[in-house]
């Protein structure tokens, strides 16, 4: 409360800022009515610090304790570099495929009607709800050489399970709902009048799709891509069963952290975890920026 009341008088610049001030003064008055600000803010900060911030700080400080050379030695061994490359590449490919397929699924769900559509809509959320280990063993069984999908593919000479391609399959499973659920609301809000205007001005359907619709849903598609990519970078449970886990070939970065920990190599585990953590934070910034862009576009 005190923080907000001291912050308000300083804001007096542009018209927009004045409007903002007025709104803030309005809610300031409200603050005096509603109780519990100090209590809830205090509890929130306390719980957040104890559960999230202090443990994360422990990781960063452990890493800092290694010194720069120690950190680089532990974090960028050839095996670790191969793991980062693999995690990055598989997450990127899976997210890219999901961006295309997720867009098609969202489009079909919003624009077309077909029997069982509500069921299909519910199925999209399954990867959010299904535990990753369950998805992992199910995908491994399915895409193994004797599995429902793996067997026909093996006859064609394609092996997905226990190769890096298997990792892509697992990450496609985990990432798909992120794209569909990000693109869907934007497609729903899309103004059909604009499409009609484009059509009546002589645009063909392809032109309308690529010049009118695609630009307005692009921020949402990119946000979905980024969310799926970020998830893929850190994913562990669904991947390890189908990956094969060969060092330098099919060993993802999170698995390497666990292996280092099991060898009591705390320096290695900490350093690699810090790299994964920083990559995750970078993605958080990208996603926040994309979501603001998304909101500006659709708002």
């Amino acid at each position, binding site marked *: 409360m005190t923080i*907000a009341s001291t912050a308000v008088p300083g804001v007096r610049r542009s018209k927009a800022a004045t409007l903002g001030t007025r709104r803030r003064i309005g809610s300031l008055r409200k603050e005096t009515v*509603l109780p519990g600000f100090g209590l809830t803010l205090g509890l929130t900060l306390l719980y957040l610090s104890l559960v999230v911030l202090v443990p994360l700080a422990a990781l960063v400080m452990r890493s800092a304790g290694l010194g720069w050379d120690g950190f680089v030695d532990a974090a960028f061994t050839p095996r670790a570099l191969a793991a980062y490359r693999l995690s990055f590449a598989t997450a990127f490919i899976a997210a890219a495929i999901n961006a295309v397929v997720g867009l098609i699924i969202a489009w079909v769900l919003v624009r077309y009607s077909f029997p069982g559509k509500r069921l299909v809509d519910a199925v999209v959320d399954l990867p959010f709800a299904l535990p990753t280990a369950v998805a992992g063993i199910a995908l491994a069984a399915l895409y193994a050489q004797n599995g429902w999908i793996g067997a026909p593919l093996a006859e064609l000479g394609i092996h997905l399970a226990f190769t890096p391609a298997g990792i892509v399959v697992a990450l496609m499973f985990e990432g798909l709902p992120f794209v569909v659920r990000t693109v869907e609301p934007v497609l729903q809000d899309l103004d059909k009048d604009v499409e009609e205007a484009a059509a009546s001005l002589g645009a063909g359907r392809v032109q309308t799709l690529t010049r009118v619709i695609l630009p307005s849903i692009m921020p949402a598609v990119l946000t979905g891509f980024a969310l799926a990519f970020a998830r893929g970078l850190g994913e562990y449970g669904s991947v390890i069963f189908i990956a094969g886990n060969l060092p330098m070939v099919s060993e993802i970065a999170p698995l390497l952290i666990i292996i280092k920990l099991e060898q009591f190599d705390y320096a290695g585990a900490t350093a690699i975890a810090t790299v994964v953590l920083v990559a995750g934070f970078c993605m958080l910034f990208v996603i926040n920026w994309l979501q603001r862009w998304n909101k500006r576009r659709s708002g």
Partner: protein
Amino acid sequence: MTGAANQKTRLAVTEPIWLRVLLTVLALTFLSLIVLLPLAGVFVEATRQGIGAYFASFDDPDVLSAIRLTLIVAAIAVPLNTVFGIVASWCIAKFEFVGKSLLVTLIDLPFSVSPVVAGLVYVLVFGVHGWLGPWLVANDIQVIFAVPGLVLATIFVTFPFVARELIPLMEEQGQEEEEAAISLGASGWRTFWRVTLPNIKWGLLYGVLLCNARAMGEFGAVSVVSGHIRGETNTMPLYVEILYNEYNFVAAFAVASLLAMLALVTLVLKKIIEWRFAGASSVVG
């Protein structure tokens, strides 16, 4: 407008029928291959050697202790994160203060942390070589490779679920109703129970549901802190891994089928809430 012109406009704002069919088939095929078949596979693999073998899989004290542990962990982590979610969203949605958007970002932070890293940070704090390690050993308290570690790791990964459902909902509803209650003389608690809670109950239930599904299904984070002690620190997902690695596929998929059923129940309830939610907000709006 004449029928022909009407037809022409309609053609221009939708795709030709063949393309519509093609896109629908593509979408359904992909969903089947990537999402639906794995789900079906869980139940088929679990009953591969008959229903008898399926039920015999649960006749194992380690399975029962894994189920019990999963329930215990969720029973501690979910209520804690629910209370936190309500407290945090009251603070964020009902008041304006400096640093609010930073706080919202920090609450979302666990979503961008790899589950394995989430587990590791607790090892670095509570493990034998961690910050509090020597003190914990001296006082004979075990956190890592024990139930408290499992609970903490689960709390970390499920931390944002309730708050992130409630914050936008409470922001949208504004403060007017609560203000009216307070100015009519109701206490803060009474206002919360009688005014705020009825307004947010569906959103709250939704958040709790997703939080619980993740808490019971979490694998990566608890895998790091568990130590995999049979009958003691294996939650259901962890025991699935052990059974699978021992080539005991029927039992692995049998335990996995329970988790898959949990996912299906979660999805059905989620859809029901979404439907009720839409109904409720259309009544209000």
